[in-house]
């Protein structure tokens, strides 16, 4: 049984924040869940995926976040409690349905889990999605710890149903990926079917309907505002004259700072758990009760700006500051010391910090950037493309493990902004320059948002080569399925779409399917695509070795070794492939047989044929 199905109310478990969200959804009776995975949100749907195999919960990995939200909206319109999860940039993809779903509303409670990524541990930007609540009019709740991740998920479902409006649960990496004690509540039964009641003048957003629905949304906003005033998680601790306001994970940093600085009797600390609509009256009372205010919030000065506006409305003239105090900036994530120092500076508290160790005498340390795994098929494809095109072609790339092709010695990623941008930007690059363009996209990303760009390339007669790196899974986020995956080994029977059929169906005439570990044939195919006058697609098919191992699909192959009698130390293997199974020992290349998966790519690259299978 999945541990989140533990039916022991009152029991405490150490749960990952994302597990706590999934548990909260189960305690709220979630019946329908969808997502496109994305760090740091991915562990929520991972739980749903497994739990859906044991219970009546319906769960799907949808093609992208827009699709996930629309699928979920259909279910919620039938009255089922529905959760849709995504990372912050996924919400950009889902923004189109998000904005008008707020007009149409929902019948069953719908919670959208949004995971922001301050510091960009695994993301291309650190946009602050609190703006989406303001933009769409959907209420937003912000938990501060693992227990609240669960509790607020339940509250969000109830609130959503009460308002008839989806609720956004906003989290950040340091909440998603923190484990803490969570007290379990009761599991609710799963409702397998609801019923849709027709009401086209409520649900079909032609202008005449939407003009009314916008009014309805504003009425819901007023109702939400009133509820937010009485919300218990918008709470004040202490009654001193120094005001501090914080949200999300920063609440912990402030709490610890107050304790470490011993200023509990001087501070009033307002924690904002329901961050949109803000409890304006509550904030006004708070502002009237203190002499100055520090706002502690990661990323944008969202609350700071709003609180200043509330002060202006109420002719309150006390100092209100946030960004710019100490190290508090719009960049990256905060940490306990940064917040403690900012609090101490702003309120003039003398304090003694622990001395930093002297780092001036540290030698230059070699870097350890993330790298493609030993036996990763992307490495072979990159090698083959470079062999044909040399170093000068432009390589728009996309989002996945293969983005690591950015680093030397591969150095084959030139431009990236978002999911799917490889294909569409290639149209611009190839038209606006005389340089050759070979772009890279992964299989899951291709389904997510590469297909529309490819259709555009065909229709507008663009000329470039698109390489689809098909490793049979969504590798970077933890091996989720996508429409092109054979899901049988994962225990679910879903219909598999052939990428080749999709590509041909889009009208591409020059299509090559290669097995990248067969280097010569792969190079031939890439050469043919280079010679073709038009749009070419090369589909490079080979399972991600980690996924293959985890699902029992790994071929039995012998690892390889270097025959040092034959090796003449060209080092093409290590210098061109950068496989982490290779290392230098006494100035000779060696292969770690525990890491080598026997892909034999290095053996094909070696000019002396000195790389051979390990003998038994």
């Amino acid at each position, binding site marked *: 049984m999945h541990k989140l199905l533990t039916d022991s109310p009152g029991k405490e478990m150490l749960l990952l924040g994302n597990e706590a969200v999934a548990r909260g959804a189960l305690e709220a009776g979630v019946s329908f869940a969808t997502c496109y995975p994305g760090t740091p949100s991915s562990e929520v749907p991972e739980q749903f995926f497994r739990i859906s195999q044991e219970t009546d919960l319906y769960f799907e990995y949808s093609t992208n976040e827009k699709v996930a939200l629309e699928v979920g909206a259909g279910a919620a319109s039938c009255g089922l409690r529905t959760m849709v999860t995504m990372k912050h940039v996924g919400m950009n993809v889902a923004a189109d349905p998000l904005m008008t779903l707020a007009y149409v509303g929902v019948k069953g409670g719908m919670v959208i889990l949004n995971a922001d990524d301050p510091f960009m541990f695994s993301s291309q930007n650190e946009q602050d999605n609190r703006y989406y609540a303001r933009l769409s009019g959907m209420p937003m709740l912000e938990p501060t710890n693992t227990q609240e991740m669960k509790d607020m998920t339940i509250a969000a479902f109830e609130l959503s149903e009460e308002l008839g409006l989806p609720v956004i649960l906003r989290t950040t990496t340091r909440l998603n990926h923190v*484990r803490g004690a969570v007290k379990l509540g009761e599991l609710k039964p799963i409702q397998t079917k609801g019923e849709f009641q027709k009401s086209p003048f409520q649900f079909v957003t032609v202008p005449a309907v939407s003009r009314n629905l916008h009014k309805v949304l504003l009425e819901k906003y007023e109702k939400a505002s009133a509820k937010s005033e009485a919300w218990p998680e918008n709470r004040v601790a202490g009654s001193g004259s120094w005001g501090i306001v914080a949200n999300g994970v920063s609440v912990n940093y402030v709490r610890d700072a107050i304790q470490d600085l011993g200023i509990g009797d001087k501070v009033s600390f307002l924690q904002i758990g329901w961050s949109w609509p803000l409890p304006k009256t509550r904030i006004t009372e708070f502002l009237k009760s203190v002499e100055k205010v520090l706002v502690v919030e990661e990323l944008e000065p969202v609350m700071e700006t709003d609180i200043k506006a509330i002060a202006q409305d109420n002719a309150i003239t006390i100092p209100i500051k946030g960004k710019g105090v100490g190290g508090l900036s719009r960049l990256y994530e905060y940490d306990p010391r940064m917040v403690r120092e900012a609090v101490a500076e702003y309120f003039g508290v003398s304090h003694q910090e622990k001395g930093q160790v002297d780092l001036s005498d540290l030698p230059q340390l070699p870097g350890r950037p993330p790298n493609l795994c030993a036996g990763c098929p992307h490495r072979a494809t990159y090698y083959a493309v470079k062999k044909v095109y040399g170093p000068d072609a432009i390589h728009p790339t996309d989002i996945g493990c293969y983005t690591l092709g950015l680093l030397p010695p591969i150095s084959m990623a030139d431009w990236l902004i978002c999911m799917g941008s490889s294909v569409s930007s290639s149209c611009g690059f190839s038209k606006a320059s005389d340089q050759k363009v070979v772009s890279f996209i992964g299989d899951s990303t291709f389904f997510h948002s590469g297909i529309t760009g490819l259709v555009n390339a065909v229709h507008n007669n663009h000329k470039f080569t698109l390489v689809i790196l098909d490793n049979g899974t969504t590798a970077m986020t933890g091996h989720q399925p996508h429409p092109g995956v054979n899901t049988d080994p994962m225990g679910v029977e879903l219909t598999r779409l052939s990428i080749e059929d999709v590509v041909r169906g889009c009208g591409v005439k020059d299509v090559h399917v290669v097995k990248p570990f067969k280097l010569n044939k792969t190079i031939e195919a890439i050469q043919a695509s280079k010679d073709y006058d038009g749009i070419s697609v090369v589909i490079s098919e080979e399972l991600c070795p980690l996924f293959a191992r985890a699902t029992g699909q790994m071929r039995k192959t012998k690892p390889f070794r270097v025959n040092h009698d034959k090796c003449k130390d060209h080092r093409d293997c290590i210098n061109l492939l950068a496989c982490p199974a290779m290392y230098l020992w006494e100035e000779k290349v060696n292969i770690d047989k525990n890491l080598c998966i026997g892909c034999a790519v290095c053996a094909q690259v070696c000019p002396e044929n000195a790389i051979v299978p390990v003998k038994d």
Partner: protein
Amino acid sequence: MDTKRCVFVGVGGQGNLLASRLLGEAALAAGIPAVVSEIHGMAQRGGVVESAVLMGDVTSPIVSNAEADVLVGFEPLETLRTIGKCNKDTLVITNVQPLPPFTVSIGQGAYPAVDGVLDLISKKVGKVISLRGNDLAEEAGNPLSLNMVMLGALIGSGAVGISAEGMKETISTSTKKAFLESNLKAFDAGMNSAK
């Protein structure tokens, strides 16, 4: 209750996330409040993996620079790279057996001499416990049990208020049965080398 801030650092695949999670579970079982902080995703692909366990009256999930009470390093270069988390009183427990990063193999930098690394660390912190973690794991019957060796050394050092029995109980309930014997052996080996 005293607060304890432990930072774990290693290389993707060495298992430090499991070690920090087990420590968190053992703390919870012993009635000690704990938060465990991890990083998943892109950073894990063969790169540096850092996690933290904060115990006692503290709710912030991360450890700022200079604020680690204990730094557990699974790889000597990474221990040194993370030294900024330490202060003059910090206990450092480190494996001394290198796992050279790939950049060294392709000529981007040299791996520093391990003796020098240990000297540098010793000069900056309160105490260093160093051990040949990979050898101990291998002797315990499973080269992948380095994380149990390091966990054993942490408990053996007495730096966190978790008993060996409590930790072993958690290992028994939360790790794979097939590896239990070697895990416990590795744990003991780590513990003995830290006493």
